[in-house]
């Protein structure tokens, strides 16, 4: 690995927000391609972070810092990647369903997905089925993630999926769901494509869903 890629990857691991932009530009100045920087620098760093997080050696605030560094670098690389026609990781659309104001878990999923290289759009909370449909049409996500914390609001996931079907966009997007009361059985029952029990596995799941598409 070249020195500069190693520096980029270290800046990702350390969540070095002060240096990551300069390092990304330095790498480009050295005539490295955007894809090379993405894979050899950013993803290499995030892979390490993922392993350390699973092993219990890194913690959520540190992973989020790394994810933010990744996002800052991606803002520079994205236009170049699009230009050169590189296959991107994909887009994730997130929201907490109507009637539910609990969103710390969904926020975590968003940050973990960014760390995994996804472009994430977070609609926020208390999102109606119609708002989800509108956003799917507009943003064109590969994966739609919905969350609910309450047993009373998790049913809204089912009605949201129905509205997606009625609007004719259900087959354009993979749907993953999560939240404390949600289970794999519930996901199967309402016709979601996947369920994850925590934010880190949600990012993993999003990767799997995209590769199936």
């Amino acid at each position, binding site marked *: 690995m070249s020195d500069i890629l190693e520096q980029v990857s270290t800046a990702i691991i350390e969540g070095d927000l002060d240096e990551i932009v300069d390092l990304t530009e330095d790498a480009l100045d050295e005539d490295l391609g955007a894809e090379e920087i993405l894979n050899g620098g950013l993803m290499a760093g995030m892979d390490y972070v993922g392993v350390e997080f699973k092993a219990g050696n890194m*913690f959520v*605030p540190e992973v989020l810092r790394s994810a933010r560094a990744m996002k800052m670098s991606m803002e520079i690389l994205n236009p170049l990647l699009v230009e050169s026609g590189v296959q991107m990781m994909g887009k994730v659309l997130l929201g907490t369903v109507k009637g539910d104001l609990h969103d710390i878990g969904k926020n975590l999923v968003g940050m973990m997905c960014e760390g995994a290289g996804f472009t994430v759009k977070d609609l926020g909370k208390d999102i109606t089925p119609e708002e989800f449909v509108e956003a799917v049409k507009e943003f064109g996500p590969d994966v739609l993630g919905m969350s609910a914390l309450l047993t009373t609001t998790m049913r809204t996931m089912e009605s949201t999926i129905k509205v997606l079907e009625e609007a004719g966009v259900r087959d354009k997007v993979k749907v993953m769901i999560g939240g404390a009361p949600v289970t794999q059985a519930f996901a199967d029952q309402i016709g979601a494509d996947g369920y994850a*029990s925590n934010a880190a596995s949600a990012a993993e799941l999003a990767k799997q869903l995209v590769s199936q598409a």
Partner: protein
Amino acid sequence: MRTNYRMNSGVRFQMLSDDQLEEMFWGVLHLLEHTGLDVKHEQARDILEKAGAWVDGERVRIPSYLVKESLRMAPRSFTLYARDGNHKHDIRIGPGRAHFGPGPTCPNFIDVETMERRPYVNSDVPAVAKMVDALPNIDFCESLGTVSDVHHDLGALYEFAGMFPNTSKPIVAWSYDQHDSAGIHQIAVAEAGGQRAFEQRPNYVHYCEPLSPLVSTFEALDKLIFAAKHRIPLIFTPCPIAGGTAPVTAAGIITQGAAESWMGLTVAQALQPGLPFFMGGVYSVMDMSAMILAYGAPELPLFMAGVTELAHYAGLPLWQTGGCTDSKCFDGQAVIEGSMSVFFSALTGGDLCHDVGYTESAMTGSVFQLCAMDEAIGYSRRIARGIEVNDDTLAVNVIQDVGPNGHYLKEKHTRRHFKSEFWYPNLLDRQDFESWEMTGGLTLKDRTAARVRDILATHSPAPIKPETEKAIEKVLAQAEERVQE
């Protein structure tokens, strides 16, 4: 600047009032002056008589001024040093500092591979010492057993020879007699770089046990005299049993036990003024149906809290007890009894808390219990550390910045504090059900066994000096020769 502002840096715990402590203190002095103890060591009786005690045959009574003088000479604060200069392994004895470690001399051991009970053997010693060296909340070393597969007079010596190279944390050494004590001391002094260097940086503590009720045995005093002469920090720890060898009441057992320790204190300070001295030891009840000394009874931590407060009132550090159980296996009972007693011990700030890892009422040592208790001690220490209050921790500005509907995950304040404010478990599971199931659905017992085996397979303690290796060989060879004669 702040004025007239009082801060509590940790959880405050006090059971007895100053009036109660004063009454107990004078109860002990009265007992020593009027009843006295049988002292079964002629030289010790001479030392005591010369210091001002009244000797009548074997019975020795000590006037209260002499006990108070001895208490005044003994330090409340001093350091026990890691043999390798690793400051993290030093133990600083002083107010508000609780330390933990295993106990000695269980006949049996829970086998690391099979988890079955069997006699304790010589090869178990390095394993226990390595565990002590690696576990973050275990501060000093004892062996959790009496070696059964060497000559019956040499168990203590082989034990020290096995522990010393396998941990640099300070060791608490017991012995059968002065021969053992001398061999142990040769090893420790070789590593320290001579007697004078040892006196400045003692790397082990000598442990002796008087007999309840009210007997200072020949062996206990003979070893005490050796330790005092060589300025080895000393533990003088009785093991009174309420209702059997001591009064059935808490205040009564504490009064008697303290008198047994302070007889030793008086001999030690007469020989070596200022010698670091811990009073002890194991105070519990005789279970009136099972007829055992109960290591898991709630009275043990309760009595120990009382002794700790009396010791600190008198200005002495305490040899505390906790982390032990009457259970025969690694189960809920073992964890309840062990965890409750280490938590209570941590709250009292008793200086060296031993017997962590005892099971079956001290009949069987277990590194699994030790490892689980390391976790319980970490948990207890987090609580005992308390709540810090200042502008930064109040976080009024951070709350203002985040505001309603925000979150704190990205805040610098969170990143700065999340490692020190929160305690992170090594054994306790907090995964969601799916992750727990996917990682094998392991129980606390499974995870403890895995951690024990992982530490034993991977941990390497700091080595001893080559001259210490030679000293160990020489001491063991001489001892073998002595017992052949």
